[in-house]
């Protein structure tokens, strides 16, 4: 068993992943179903599941890293193993979302005309597109959370705050550049992307995930416990 897989298994032991994670989806689905009679669009509740991934990525650092290092794991392996767990969970969860989407289609929205797993534009294509897009999105969020966890571990609340402010500045700067260059990525009509399909967007998110992965790695390299 490679060290990465061992680290992934070690992180998987935490109850918030192995016990709680499978229940987030049924819970948010139940809430969506309860409100379905008022609105058939319940896809917003699916967001909970995605955000939970970011939170879990964040929480894998704080206490797991010190014990991991105490057991002779290097930071590099801890990081790679944790990212690997994120990838595995994202692939499995993406598959589950894809299967549930197929069922939702076949049963006309669970008999309620509900749109929970069919997210307009993003998760509304063939099964492989749904799987790929959701898995890439979940992984990106996991890695994003992971990076925040590392930043918090090293520099505490103030450091995390500075990190978030820096991100906001990057986003604002990017926005200014895009608008001044008249790079209209999204058309004003219908929110669909001009020249960017859902799969194209998935590619962008995948590239972003790679960047986040590199950032987290650079941050954990000198972490002291």
């Amino acid at each position, binding site marked *: *068993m490679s*060290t990465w897989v*061992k680290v992934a*298994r*070690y992180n998987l*032991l*935490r*109850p*918030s992943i192995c016990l709680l994670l499978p229940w987030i989806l049924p819970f948010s689905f139940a809430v969506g179903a309860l409100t379905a009679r008022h609105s058939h669009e319940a896809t917003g509740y699916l967001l909970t599941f995605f955000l939970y991934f970011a939170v879990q990525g964040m929480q894998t650092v*704080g*206490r*797991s890293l*010190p*014990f991991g*290092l*105490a*057991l*002779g*794991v*290097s*930071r*590099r*392996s801890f990081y790679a193993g944790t990212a690997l767990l994120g990838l595995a969970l994202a692939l499995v969860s993406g598959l589950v979302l894809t299967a549930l989407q197929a069922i939702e289609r076949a049963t006309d929205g669970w008999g309620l005309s509900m749109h929970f797993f069919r997210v307009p534009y993003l998760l509304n294509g063939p099964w492989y597109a749904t799987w790929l897009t959701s898995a890439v999105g979940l992984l990106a969020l996991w890695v994003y959370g992971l990076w925040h966890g590392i930043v918090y571990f090293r520099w505490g609340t103030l450091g995390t705050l500075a990190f978030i402010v820096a991100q906001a500045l990057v986003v604002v700067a990017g926005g200014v550049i895009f608008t001044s260059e008249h790079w209209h990525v999204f058309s004003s009509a219908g929110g669909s992307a001009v020249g960017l399909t859902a799969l194209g967007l998935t590619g962008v998110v995948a590239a972003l995930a790679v960047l986040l992965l590199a950032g987290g790695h650079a941050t954990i*390299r*000198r972490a*002291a*416990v």
Partner: protein
Amino acid sequence: MTTAISVAGLTKSYRSGSGLLHPAEEAALDDVNLTVGAGTITGLLGRNGAGKTTLLRILAGQEFPSSGSVRVLGAPPAENEDVLRRLVFVREDQAYPEIKVGQALRVASWFYPNWDSALASALADDFGLRAGKAVQRLSRGQRSALGITIGLAARAEVTLFDEPYAGLDAVARQLFYDRLLADFAEFPRTVLLSTHLIDEAAALFEGVIVIDRGRVVLDAAADVLRGAATRVSGPCLAVDALVAGRPVWERRQLGSQASVVMIEPLSAGDREQARSAGLDLTPLSLQQIVVQAAAGMLAPVPGAGFATERTSA
């Protein structure tokens, strides 16, 4: 004897104070040089804040040196898994994730090639650790017991213990010493044990390293230290006659009686002279010697074979 740990010119500074433009640097370790032979049990002693934990963290690759060289099993330990998987570090303030005792032991077994499950269960039983109990719910003593169990069952070539038995009662501590010695005899390894309970652990030590304010103030074989200092007490004149011209630590006098600590081994002639003069000779315990060393009282002792590094600020 091969060297398991060698440290040269090791300095670790932390930023202290709040000045952003002119941050003050505080040295937790200041030009530390030491070597630890393979297959020995060495005591790492010193006061709180002396730098023991920082040194152990650097040896375990958990912290990075500011300068100097650190080699464990022949290579720098930081991020070096060839070294790290042969090393275990049990620290007093170990943080654990949200897992159960049994899971913590299972995880440890994955990472250590020489892990002994039978020993781990036996130790857990001895210490009354229940596998199903959440680590977060353990008392301080039980947490220490878990650390000790991992540290011993890992059978790592280099085993670092930092105050491993905080909160453990005397019976459990004795259990730790006994188990450590028994397993060490069967599977020799390099053990570096930091502790404040010096006299209690003294019998374990082959070597002793004392750190004070980030510097090594004493690095010697325990055998040499045991006979190295003797309290001589009795009539003033007889005491003075015996210690005249020889290094001493402290001198107390009450009326016609005096008491002096002599810091060199006594010869047979000295003992005979002391006996006939009615002087009382009491060897200083390791703890008393360490207290003196940490207080900066230890002068180089000629002929005693000390590898003492005398440092002064």
